[in-house]
């Protein structure tokens, strides 16, 4: 049995769902963030797989852009988490409930 694109897509879907579960389940801000990175990776995998399927290079270009943006997002996000940690000494997102109502 040859590897078809469906395999890759299913794998990406699985990784994405695990990422979603991670975001919803975990309370540690850093782990939530990592779950988001996992989801981005899943999307990148999809892009590249479809690019191979259709024979177009644009998919890889899109994946490259996603990576760049993800890198920038990680930078800022972690800086925010650190700043929050400085004031609260906790990385527990459940305690960041001040924007209520």
């Amino acid at each position, binding site marked *: 049995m040859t*590897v*078809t*694109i*469906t395999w*890759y*897509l*299913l*794998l990406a*879907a*699985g*990784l*994405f*769902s*695990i990422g979603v*579960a*991670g975001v*919803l*389940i*975990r*309370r*540690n801000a*850093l*782990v939530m*963030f*990592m*779950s988001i*990175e996992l989801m981005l*990776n899943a999307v*990148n*995998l999809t892009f*590249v*797989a*479809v690019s*191979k*399927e*259709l024979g177009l*290079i644009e998919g*890889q*270009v899109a*994946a*490259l*852009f996603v*990576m*760049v*943006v*993800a*890198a*920038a997002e*990680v930078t*800022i996000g*972690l*800086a925010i*988490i*650190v*700043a929050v*940690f400085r*004031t609260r000494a*906790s*990385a527990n997102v*459940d305690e960041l409930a001040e924007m209520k109502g």
Partner: protein
Amino acid sequence: MAETIVFIIFAAVALVGAVGMVAASNPVYSAMGLLATMFAVAVMYVALDAHFIAAVQVIIYAGAVMTLFLFVIMLIGVDTSDAYGTQVPAQRISTAVVAVGFFASLALAGRAAWITGSSTFGTPNLNGTVEAVADELFGTWTIIFLSTVMLLTIAALGTIALAYYREAPAEEVAE
């Protein structure tokens, strides 16, 4: 044949890493799991003839992003206590439902005709070299490329600003 074996092995690695990331109580273990997943995905990229992207994945994601994550984890402190803490059972069930829902709908979406139509899969027709990607990148997508450059610059500046942020000293507030 080789491709199938490679796929199965590294798919397994990716899934194990992902589940490990979500399940581990120690954030450092989570980071390790994610690292494993990223390496596995990089191998997948190679299998998909996206050599340049694979290299970038290892360098940027596994090399820079995860390193940054580990730095911050060490900075903030490894706190293994109540990683799951007070979780209402309903939350776990609803999370499971949502995750399964996502998986199902994405899998269904993957059956679209434009994907399963004429397939060039399996044939090494795609040139995933640096030259090909660069041709596309600096040709059609120049402006977007430059925008991402700006984005990175702004992100760096923002991070520096956040790093220097200090709250107002307490004496001023007391006055």
